[in-house]
């Protein structure tokens, strides 16, 4: 996925009715809720601040490793390869999973 798929571009200054409405609603919500929400989320934030970079790497690489292990050893071979056009290692989607995830995993191992 790309960042622009999920993130709204920074809003233009309120030049029209809709923009002005969005700004005023946003200000109203901020005034009422930001205080209570800060008291809930700031303690959670403090748990993660100062974590060692090795922790980042453990979680990120762990996500890839656990996904590979799940596909290769927990899912049934017959389920993974249902409708396989031919028998053989090259048509085994468990191998495909390993090959397609390894470059991602190596990148996180090197650049974390």
């Amino acid at each position, binding site marked *: 996925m790309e960042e622009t798929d999920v993130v709204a571009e920074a809003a233009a200054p309120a030049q029209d009715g809709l923009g002005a409405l969005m700004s005023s609603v946003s200000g109203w919500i901020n005034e009422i809720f930001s205080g209570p929400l800060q008291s809930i989320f700031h303690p959670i934030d403090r748990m993660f601040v100062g974590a060692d970079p090795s922790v980042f790497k453990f979680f990120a690489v762990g996500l890839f490793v656990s*996904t590979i292990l799940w596909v290769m050893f927990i899912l049934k071979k017959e389920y993974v390869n249902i409708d396989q056009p031919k028998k053989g290692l090259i048509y085994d989607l468990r191998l495909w999973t390993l090959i397609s995830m390894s470059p991602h995993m190596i990148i996180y191992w090197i650049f*974390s």
Partner: protein
Amino acid sequence: MEDQLIQSAGSGLHAIDIAIIGIYVVGTLALGTYFGKYVKSAGDFFVAGKALPFWAIGMSVVVSDIGATDFMTLSGAGYKYGIAAANFDWIGSMPAMAFAAFIFIPYFWRAGVFTIPEFLGKRYNAAVQLIHASIWGVFLLVMLAVMLWLTASMLDGVLQIEGIGKNHYVWGIAVVAGIYTVSGGLAAVVMTDVVQLVVMFVGGAALSILCLAEVGGWTKMTETILAMPGHENHFTLLLPHDSETPYPWTGIVFGLGIVMATGYMAGNQAVVQRTLGARTEWDAKGGMLFAGFLKVFIPALVMVPGLAAVIILPDLQNGDDAAPLMIAKVLPPGLKGLMFAALFAALMSSVDSTLNSATTIWTSDIYGRCFQFINKKRPSERSLLILGRTCTVVFILIGAYFARFLAGKESMYTFVQTALAMFQGPVFAILLLGIMWKRATQWGALAGLLLGVCFTTILYNSEGVFPSQDPFLFVAWWSFVFSSVVTAIVSLLTPAEPEEKIRGLVFGQVMQDGDVQRVLQERVE
């Protein structure tokens, strides 16, 4: 400013460059139209007659994901924040694509549904289906108009033909994309995507290689950038939790890697529709894995120009200017035309995918649901095919007509995009619970969806709650958690759904129950 940059990038285009762009446009039109002869039914039109091979699905998923502005914005993010911006193509794709391949796609395949709202409607109720379908339907239409305008702006800036303005280009693109999408449906969209991916990879690789050559290679580039003040983290993927950038590691791993990416790969109509067009379940799964493999290369193609610009153009006010300026600086005649064909390919693939997905949602979920409600029966195959083609024509005309108005109404685009982003966490929560937990009820889902969107709206607009200046990743994670909890609590407080209603709609049943499999097979046939 953007137009001026594109003009500067396009200045000095030679006849060979314009010829390459022309050949690309004509070739795309011819290839797409060719597939029209295979379209005989609604199934052929919407899911390509279930004949797509894994390689076409994989390539199409990747190229559809590269949006209209991604070439500029990813390069710009690389310029500003470094390789952390590439997380969206790496951890934001691969674990999620494996989950989609082995949980969601086989499930949709076996449950016999064609859109995500259709599943939500069958599993929960019509309100959930219509809310989801309407927000996606409106979003896709607005995006279509925006993409048409962006593509026209690029062409106008590059070609600069006297007497032809942006509006002419809008209608020209609408005609080209409209003809092959109306004619060939999903098959035409996917097969033109395959060509567009090749063009994008060749053009992007040429630009990246020349940019690297300009700065003395990868090693020299990294050493130089890391030695510059304020760029110490430019080659670090995971940044500390209290980083002020939009990419803290907690948000990247939990918000992006687990929630947003999986929700996107399993809940995005454009992605799901391609896999449902696969010739076998193996091709559907293999297509997702192949797409995940190709995604490794995307940052190398579109981010390297931004990184090289850190050295060559260190004083840019706006990072998004990096890619157009590097195109103007390093590409020779011929390759410049290829690069613009690549940019055009990215834009066209977004236009045709959006058009096809919008048509499917409006035809299947909104019209189909209303027809069924009024007439107590499903619309016929023939009427769906006619309506699908009619909708494609009407939507491209609406998009082309409103494109110029949206160009001056940025707040409308922002509003719709924000609204969609607010739905992602809650929708993924009810989708996941609906598939995995038979006790999830329609009232639980409705409460989870509506309260989840309210909670997301509050989080988005409350300042100082999270350390990041742009905390959308945290918002995604917490809105998913909140919606899951609400759905679970309300479900447990309301009566369970009858066995008959959820027969064939819960993962365990669909995968393991032979009787359910037979019923579903009959339903599909």
